[in-house]
């Protein structure tokens, strides 16, 4: 037996994303942000997207390209502080923003990937973040119901992969990537190094290839991946 090969041309992988889709995008700042897939989605042109991403990157970087091209209607996120464009779009009403506590966003995505309906949490229960959320009693304590999140597509950045889509991440480029890689109908991973089957130690794989639909081998990395000199 031999594991299937999921390597693709980038245009072929992105082609399935439709207007109105929900798209998860990995990354926390630059590390782990799939810069090349984001550019491919700009070129593809799908509109009215709901993005799920920890942050909005910085002006001229990452998902800012999708905000600038007007393809994003809604952003589910935790913090926009480094992107003045995103804040301006939010304040003008051009971009609808839903803020989540960071670890709760992570758990909602993990629940979506794990086939669960929601998680129960007490984070923000006595603050304005609790407004509009369902409350349940369990073991004598009140909990907020945080619904699971799934997406039509997830854009993932990994350090190493094999053709089956087994993925490994490095350093703080891990962040939301392994969670989002489990939580979308179509999971597209760009990878810095593509190894042959067996090239990744089975015990060193972060995301099993079962979750991954398309593997895109990156060539020379663009400047957007480099250290940011602010």
């Amino acid at each position, binding site marked *: 037996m031999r594991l299937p090969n999921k390597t693709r041309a980038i245009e072929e992988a992105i082609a399935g994303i439709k207007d109105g889709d929900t798209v998860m995008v990995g990354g926390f*700042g630059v*590390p782990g942000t799939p810069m090349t897939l984001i550019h491919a989605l700009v070129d593809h042109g799908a509109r009215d997207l709901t993005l799920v991403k920890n942050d909005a990157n910085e002006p001229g970087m990452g998902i800012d390209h999708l905000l600038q091209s007007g393809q994003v209607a809604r952003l589910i996120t935790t913090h926009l502080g480094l992107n003045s464009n995103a804040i301006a779009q939010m304040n003008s009403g051009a971009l609808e923003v839903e803020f989540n*506590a*960071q*670890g709760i966003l992570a758990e909602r995505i993990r629940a979506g990937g794990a086939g669960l309906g929601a998680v129960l*949490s007490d984070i923000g229960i*006595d603050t304005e973040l609790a407004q509009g959320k369902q409350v349940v009693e369990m073991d004598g304590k009140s909990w907020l119901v945080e619904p699971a999140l799934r997406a039509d597509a997830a854009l993932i950045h990994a350090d190493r992969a094999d053709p089956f889509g087994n993925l490994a991440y490095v350093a703080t480029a891990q962040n939301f990537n392994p969670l989002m890689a489990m939580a979308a109908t179509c999971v597209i991973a760009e990878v810095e190094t593509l190894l042959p089957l067996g090239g990744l130690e089975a015990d060193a794989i972060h995301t099993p290839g079962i979750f991954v639909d398309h593997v895109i081998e990156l060539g020379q990395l663009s400047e957007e991946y480099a250290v*940011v000199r*602010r």
Partner: protein
Amino acid sequence: MSDARERMVARAAREIAPGMVVNLGIGLPTRVVNHLSADFPVCLHTENGLSGIGPTLGYDKADRNLIDAGGAYVSTVPGSACFDSATSFAIVRSGRLDLTMLGAFEVSATGDLANWKIPGKFSPGAGGGIELAQKARRVVVLTTQTDRVGNPKLKEACSLPLTARGCVTRIFTDMAVIDVTPAGFALVETADGVSAAEVAEATDAPLALPDTAIPTF
């Protein structure tokens, strides 16, 4: 940074006991790391997925994949671990953080913290701040005693949207160290050259003074 702020940061660093797991919030708290010696036994955590933070690196030595939650390029130390965001906040919410140091817009006399939103002016989202404030075993605040126009940040009650209720136990400012007690704010120490009366004047709530001589820092 002014001498008063540098002394405040240095004083806050002494709050870290050997063996602790500590998260230093974005802004002034991050600078506390500069006052910890290389052989001090502590595990620093950053919520984007690293335990065992080493010294901050200049751009020439930076690893493009290794940042802290504030975006600064950091290093690892022998024994560092990297993990995903769910694991990182499992550490936070399950009570594995002995201490977090956070910034503040306002702190109330009951320890309520407001540090993420000024309606109509500043609302970039709280990131991981709510979980840190609500779940770290001990939450202390580093902040100037007053804002840029001189208004006290320590108040009877917060007027801004809260990050978490009743979470703050100690506040380090450029003028004083102040505890939040069941009876309200209590002065613990003053900065060198600052009087207790001056601290009380810059606090918008009753400030209990100790019966004994007040140490300085």
